[in-house]
């Protein structure tokens, strides 16, 4: 085969097939029991399944809907931002409703698809879309960030195997600059540190300014190392997969990391992860499916999940429980109750 003109398209086709296979199209587990009309589906953002973060969490909520409520479920993964609209449209065409768009990156896609399918219910996680058939599921990340900040601000003043009271410096590692959920985490975190340690310094840095910033652990590690060099002994992240870099840096330099979205200490047991600011996307998805099944889909509403609604939580200290003094634990409980009672003011932007 001397003809290069033939070979190039062949290889390109093979490439495209491989690219299409990249994690795509998995899922499709049918949990239907026939007698039920609700067919729920999620579309992941580019993070995809396996992100150990909100996509996985949303999928867990969907699967729970499948097993506990007997609804038919499907997952479509997005390989690139151009897949968002196609995936949403495809599910709507196939009669799925509610269709969950997971992540604020899909805001524009939901905005343009939802009006074309007025009979389909959509739900968007982490963003607000104003349409009668769209439920906006948002989280008060600030509350989780605030609790993480209280933990960091108190623990940096303690002498433990991982922290020293010498320097009152704590860090924040963000993923994409300007991403609303991350900003809310940061704002809450800074306020939480300030509340318990007014002379503490918070070093806040972002990995990048594009969605790729959630996928660059090497850069995440580098930022964490620089923060540690400046005295930080606890670093909280909202950086998706880039947070893996923080965990490595924390392990190498013996400092505490605070995880995000899910209980990351259980996902990465080797790293010194003190706790995590958990976002129960699974609860939000499950609750919305349940409402849809009961004919109470919250279309056109913004549904907020916070500490009170069990949409936000602080993970248990796990293997580091004995490093945390009782008065610190008491203070955290106090603050948690204060937030639920509405006594704590948490800023929305850093």
């Amino acid at each position, binding site marked *: 085969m001397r*003809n290069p003109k033939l070979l190039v398209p062949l*290889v390109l086709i093979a490439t495209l097939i*491989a690219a*299409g296979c990249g994690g795509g199209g998995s899922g499709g587990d049918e949990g239907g029991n026939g007698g039920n009309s609700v067919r729920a589906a999620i579309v992941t953002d580019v993070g995809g399944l396996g992100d*150990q973060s909100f996509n996985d969490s949303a999928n867990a909520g969907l699967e729970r809907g499948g097993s506990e409520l007997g609804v038919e479920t499907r997952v479509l993964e997005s390989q690139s931002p151009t897949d968002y609209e196609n995936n949403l449209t495809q599910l709507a065409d196939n009669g799925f409703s509610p269709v969950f768009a997971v992540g604020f990156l899909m805001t524009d896609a939901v905005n343009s698809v939802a009006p074309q399918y007025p009979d389909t219910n959509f739900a968007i996680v982490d963003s607000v879309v104003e349409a009668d058939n769209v439920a906006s599921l948002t989280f008060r990340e600030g509350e989780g960030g605030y609790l993480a900040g209280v933990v960091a601000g108190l623990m940096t003043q303690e002498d433990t195997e991982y922290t020293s009271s010498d320097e009152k410096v704590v860090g924040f590692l963000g993923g994409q*600059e300007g991403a609303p959920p991350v900003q809310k985490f940061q704002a809450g975190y800074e306020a939480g540190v300030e509340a318990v340690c007014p002379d503490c310094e918070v070093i806040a840095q*972002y990995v990048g300014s594009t969605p790729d910033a959630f996928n*660059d652990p090497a850069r995440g590690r*580098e930022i964490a190392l620089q923060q540690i*060099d400046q005295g930080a002994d606890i670093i909280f992240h909202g950086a998706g997969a880039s947070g893996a870099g923080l965990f490595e840096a924390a392990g190498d330099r013996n400092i505490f990391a605070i995880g995000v979205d899910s209980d990351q200490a259980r996902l990465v047991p080797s790293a010194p992860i003190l706790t995590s600011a958990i976002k129960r996307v699974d609860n939000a998805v499950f609750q919305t499916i349940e409402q849809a099944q009961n004919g109470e889909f919250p279309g056109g509403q913004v549904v907020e999940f916070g500490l009170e609604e069990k949409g936000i939580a602080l993970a248990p200290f796990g293997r580091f429980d004995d490093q945390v003094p009782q008065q610190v634990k008491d203070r955290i409980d106090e603050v948690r109750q204060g937030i639920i009672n509405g006594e704590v003011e948490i800023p929305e932007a850093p």
Partner: protein
Amino acid sequence: MEETLTALGAILASTLRNATPLIFAALGGMFSERSGVVNIGLEGLMLISAFAGAVGAFYSGNALVGLATALGAGLLFALIHAVMCITFEADQIISGTAINLLALGGTGFLMVVFFGSGGTTPRVASFELVRIPGLADIPVIGPALFEQSLLVYLMYFLVPLTFFVVFRTPFGLRLRASGEVPEAVDTAGVSVTRMRYYGVALSGMLAALGGVYLSMSLLSAFTEGMTNGRGFIALAALIFGRWNPIGAAVAALLFGLAQAVTFRVAQDVIPLEFVQMFPYILTIVVLAGFGGRAIAPSALGKPYRKE
């Protein structure tokens, strides 16, 4: 004063860590482009090797086995590029793009095959920091330069070695001639095809070292898409360094320094976007001919067909 020195040492160490993967890939790009084959697939070669290394290290529990699988994968995919571009005379840009796409989709697919889901692999064996006694005790620069991963020491060694091989050996002369005047190489009885295969194969293995440094030295796990444009920045370093190994290394260090400084100072002082565009702006400036024009090997990108 002491604090400033400590900060300088930390920035230097960070610069090296940022630059090392770029230097490996840029050296690789140099071998390929000096022989006359454009290799914009460096990004993909790094990504595939980072993944192959993590898989090898995961199943063997040994970083050296991971290094071997990564070098093998880098070589294999570079040879695909070589077959396409040299033997079948396909468009080199298209072939390189195909390698990049294949790497992104292929590793995502294989993540599911090997580890059950995408995202990030479990922790794998990686190269530990090696402290060189004596040298590491030099104040400020000692810990930055001589308390690094084995791969960084390999990089110190490879930059001058590459320079020597390319500019001071018969092999280097033939390689460079294949990229400048392939007819002359042919007339001298040396196979242009073979020289170009060597160049592309070396580029695959050097890019593999860059990938391994990411997944098994800086980190000890593979994350999908973790190269995040470093292969392209390495190309920028190669051009900015005027296809010279020392120049490319200096350029990569400059890019690494820019990044280290951005991470050090508050990000409202230097915007993140600045450091992201920095390598490309410099490359455009150099290509536009400021401060002495950068001239690519003259037969770069042109398939050679024996008369």
